[in-house]
């Protein structure tokens, strides 16, 4: 089984700051880490490999420094690492990111299974996983909390819901995004660290993934960040009292008022 794990380098949540002028994340002097959810995706991939055989490839789109998280992933059990890096990718939103990742995955021959984190702790959109699956034209399941069955051509997985979970059977190739409940990621191993040190990381540029420049980076990103703010919950509440009939009448009246 060939498994690709998409990992993103994110600023350590402990010291993230927002640049009030540009509304973008200020990454200067901030420690970079693997997106925490992606650690769980990697761990699940390594466990699948250990149990059923295969290879685990970690893939990231990012600046050259993102090679760090690829080495760290290899020290935790990944076999190969691919960095897609090009100035043309700068400023990518989720649409451009999924385009770039999908082109890279095609370039390296696709996969039986693609694993992503549920969301990145900086961008936080949770769009890349599903968007990537759509671009690859494969089924996806988000918020997977357990892989319950591994069959020849399909998997049965549990999707975490607000009130319990769904059991979903899905044919391969497929893409899952995972939640933290799925496993406890391991620490690096010494052999893994040694391998990571020597590892030659495959680096792919925009040209090498046959990308259409118009769909890359800022150019390919229709998203404009106008303002970033924490929404305030300030809705008014009122209690409706009386008999059931009275309550229904009052509610209907209010609803009609608002329409």
């Amino acid at each position: 089984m060939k498994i690709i794990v998409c990992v993103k380098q994110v600023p350590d949540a402990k010291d993230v700051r927002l640049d009030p002028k540009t509304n973008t994340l200020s990454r200067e002097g901030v420690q970079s880490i693997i997106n925490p959810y992606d650690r769980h995706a990697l761990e699940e991939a390594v466990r699948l490999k250990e149990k059923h055989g295969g290879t685990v490839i970690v893939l990231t789109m990012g600046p050259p420094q993102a090679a760090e998280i690829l080495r760290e992933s290899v020290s935790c059990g990944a076999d190969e690492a691919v960095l897609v890096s090009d100035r043309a990718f700068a400023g990518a939103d989720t649409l451009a990111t999924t385009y770039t990742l999908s082109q890279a995955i095609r370039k390296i021959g696709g996969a039986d299974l693609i694993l992503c984190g549920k969301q990145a702790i900086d961008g936080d959109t949770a769009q890349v996983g599903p968007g990537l699956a759509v671009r690859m034209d494969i089924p996806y399941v988000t918020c997977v909390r357990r892989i319950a069955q591994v069959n020849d051509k399909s998997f049965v997985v549990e999707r975490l819901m607000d009130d319990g979970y769904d059991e979903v059977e899905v044919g391969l190739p497929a893409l899952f995004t995972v939640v933290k409940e799925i496993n406890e990621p391991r620490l690096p191993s010494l052999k893994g660290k040694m391998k990571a040190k020597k590892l030659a990381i495959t680096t792919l540029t925009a040209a090498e993934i046959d990308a259409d420049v118009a769909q890359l980076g800022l150019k390919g990103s229709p998203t404009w960040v106008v303002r970033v703010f924490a929404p305030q919950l300030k809705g008014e509440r009122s209690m409706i009292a009386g008999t059931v009939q009275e309550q229904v009448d009052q509610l209907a009246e209010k609803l009609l008022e608002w329409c």
Partner: protein
Amino acid sequence: MDYFLTEEQQMIVDLSRQIADELIIPQRAALDESEDFPTEILDAVAKADLFGIYIPEQYGGIGAGTFEIVLALEQFGRGCVGVATAFAASALGAFPIMIAGSEEMKQKYLPDIATGSKKAAFALTEANAGSDASGIQTTAVLDGDEWVLNGTKQWITNAGEARIYTVIAITDRSKGPRGASMFVVEDTDPGFSYGVKEKKLGIRASSTRELIFKDCRIPKDRLIGREGTGFITVMKTLDKSRPGIAILGVGLGQAALDEAVTYAKQRVQFGKPIISFQAVQHMLADMAIQLEAARSLVYAAAKHIDAHPRDMSKASSMCKVFATDMAMKVTVDAVQVLGGYGYMRDYPVEKMMRDAKILQIYEGTNQIQRNVVGQELNKEYTKA
């Protein structure tokens, strides 16, 4: 101080430090209370390949030496000497096989020890044989294709948790020092069982129990090396392992110093942080000086042992005495710096003080180590 580690050595330090900080330190107080064996932590250590540091690559290990295992143990010792002892005891149990075992024996046992899937233990001590190893009563008698063991070993670290035991027994009492031999006993061997778990002052996360052999039958090929070489193998094993105990003292001393300095900067009395009082400062300074001197000696001894495997005794004993006496002193002083708070279980230094004591006792008491150094000096100056 910078000890100019290689990249590989630095990796071992980083990984062991991460395990100490993320897994050991958060659990050490609870393990000390419950006296539970740290199975989960050791599983993580196993997955990180650290059980295999000192085992040659052809048996699935990393193929590094005494210095590298010392680097790992320093971090574990900083975390918890109890957990670190459980880890170190597996190496102690494996050394006789590495030193004197046949090729088949190495192939059979070392790979499982390297992956940590099976832990090992070393069994020398008996009720009447502590410092004086020649007092052992356990016997092994050849009966056809099997050795039959009878006797009781006491205070064996990892007993009940390990699957592979290296055990010394008398094979021919008439031959005196040449009359003992070492064997591998497996946990499932018939006639082999464990006594009760000891209640201890410190290192309570490690398991210390008796091994009981009642007509315990093991195949003939479990003999380690030649018959009659048991005491030689034991001495070589302990020479090789003692820097590991010494460095637990260094790790522990570092942990105590860290706590003491941090506390001294925060604690205000007479309107000032107590670190501003010269008496406290000098105590901290002496702790740091002794600690660094011990670290330097242990590192140097470990490197000497890796380079001169035939001339280990003096370096090994010297570093064990110095570093573990230092650990005792430094942990007592750390409690003093923390005052009454240091005496309470809310702070980790009282446990550190309790844990330090064992380092002066096991793998040969510090009196016995001084005897070794003295005897080596006597030999050296006779030769000259």
